[in-house]
């Protein structure tokens, strides 16, 4: 599925947070949205998920405008938020069933799909445990499994590794890349951590509300005349 952002602009009061951001995501690829804290990543995610209303520009999913066909768009998007969005006191399965119901799936179908996803994420044996008993890495995996229940074509992850240790971060990143390869899922992974991005990824660098670079990691490096992505990121944003 193609995703296109056209000339997005957003301001909180008088303060512009996004300025003329345009990009297109390639179907079935891993995209890294890289930017220091306060770059506008979460605002961009807010717009993509309809939590923020579009002020300027438009977002097109498979050619359909988010403004005109919001329901159709939401059916195709899976989201993992930066902050935990699981009910800690409910079990893993109950959390999945709540999400499935919100997408109009019957209990039977929800159970079938939930178990399938949990098996894939090696969490089926934890299905009846309260989320509170899971470690941070496992909770994140449950959130990704949940985001995939309604079989979206685009998976949005807003800094999903916040609060995880190095090993869990790496594992989660690998895992999502595998999903991308296996299922042809289009992924937009927002992060401020350069080590989560590879040179072969499509990289979008956002800084102070503007898109400073858009291309594969290696192409961006070449254009900037730098050796590594970290150097490029530093040169463009003064961060990292």
């Amino acid at each position: 599925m193609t995703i296109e952002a056209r000339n997005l602009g957003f301001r909180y009061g008088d303060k512009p947070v996004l300025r003329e951001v345009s990009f297109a995501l390639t179907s079935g690829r891993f995209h890294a949205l890289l930017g220091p804290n306060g770059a506008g990543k979460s605002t961009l995610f807010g717009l993509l998920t309809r939590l923020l209303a579009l002020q300027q520009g438009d977002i097109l999913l498979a050619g359909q405008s988010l403004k005109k066909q919001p329901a159709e768009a939401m059916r195709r998007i899976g989201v993992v938020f930066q902050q935990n969005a699981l009910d800690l006191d409910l079990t893993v399965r109950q959390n999945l069933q709540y999400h499935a119901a919100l997408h109009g799936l019957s209990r039977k179908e929800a159970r079938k799909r939930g178990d399938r996803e949990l098996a894939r994420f090696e969490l089926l044996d934890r299905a009846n445990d309260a989320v509170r008993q899971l470690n941070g890495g496992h909770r994140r995996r449950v959130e990704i499994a949940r985001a995939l229940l309604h079989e979206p074509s685009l998976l949005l992850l807003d800094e999903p590794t916040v609060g995880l240790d190095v090993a869990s971060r790496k594992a989660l990143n690998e895992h999502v890349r595998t999903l991308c390869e296996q299922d042809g899922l289009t992924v937009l992974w927002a992060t401020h951590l350069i080590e989560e991005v590879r040179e072969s990824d499509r990289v979008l660098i956002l800084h102070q509300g503007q898109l400073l670079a858009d291309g594969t990691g290696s192409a961006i490096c070449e254009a900037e005349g730098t050796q590594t992505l970290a150097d490029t990121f530093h040169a463009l944003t003064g961060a990292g």
Partner: protein
Amino acid sequence: MKAAHYWHCFVGIQTREWLRFWQQRTRFASALVRPLLWLVVFAAGFRAVLGISIIPPYQTYITYETYIAPGLCGMIILFNSMQGALSMVYDRELGSMRVLLMSPLPRPFLLVTKLLAMGVVSIGQVYVFLLLALLVDVEPPLWGYLAVLPALVLTSLMLGALGLLIATWIKQLENFAGVMNFVIFPMFFMSSALYPLWKMNEASPWLYWVCQFNPFTYAVEAIRFSLYLEWNPVAYGITAGVTVVLALLATAGFRPQRTKILGTKPA
């Protein structure tokens, strides 16, 4: 989207609310302490001060406990609705609201369903309260327990919508203490929950006038009359009308960016 999708969504939201209720049953039980204190302690002390004569829907002299029981049912819903609405946009329920708003179903449907689900849990508490009230001889007719149900549902939706409207638009009231002082107590005291309005009229005509404009008064009267199997079209009509208006305003005016749902400070 087909009707079945809406139905599964409706059931899913209700189910989640009950699961959470069960997880936090001690918190809900402690929420019953407040109305019971009013019923057992306050009413006992006040009974001597305030004699209640025969007014509709009652057909005989009644105790003060009997008079305030419907008002306390309203109070349970009032507290729960305000607390629930605040938690939807500011704290405990933020995660579930994020998930809720990712549903492809229309937002007004999702919000009203959520308010109803929270309302159903409050109504469960009201029934437990009414059972306990039997111990102090508040004994409405048996069918009254069923007849009161529509009034309770309307009241919970009305107050839930009011809570959501306030929580979304009045930033100064983002904590419970503020809502308690500026919404809950004024609504409760300036209504017919604790005293018949003719008493208020004797004491202060302008306060009586304010009470007449308080929708909570009509919600309490709708509860009171239906609990005693009497039909009060004015109370019902006003409660229903206000419910529709508030639900429309609350859902149409709902903006996630005015809450903490995005995870950032409200703009």
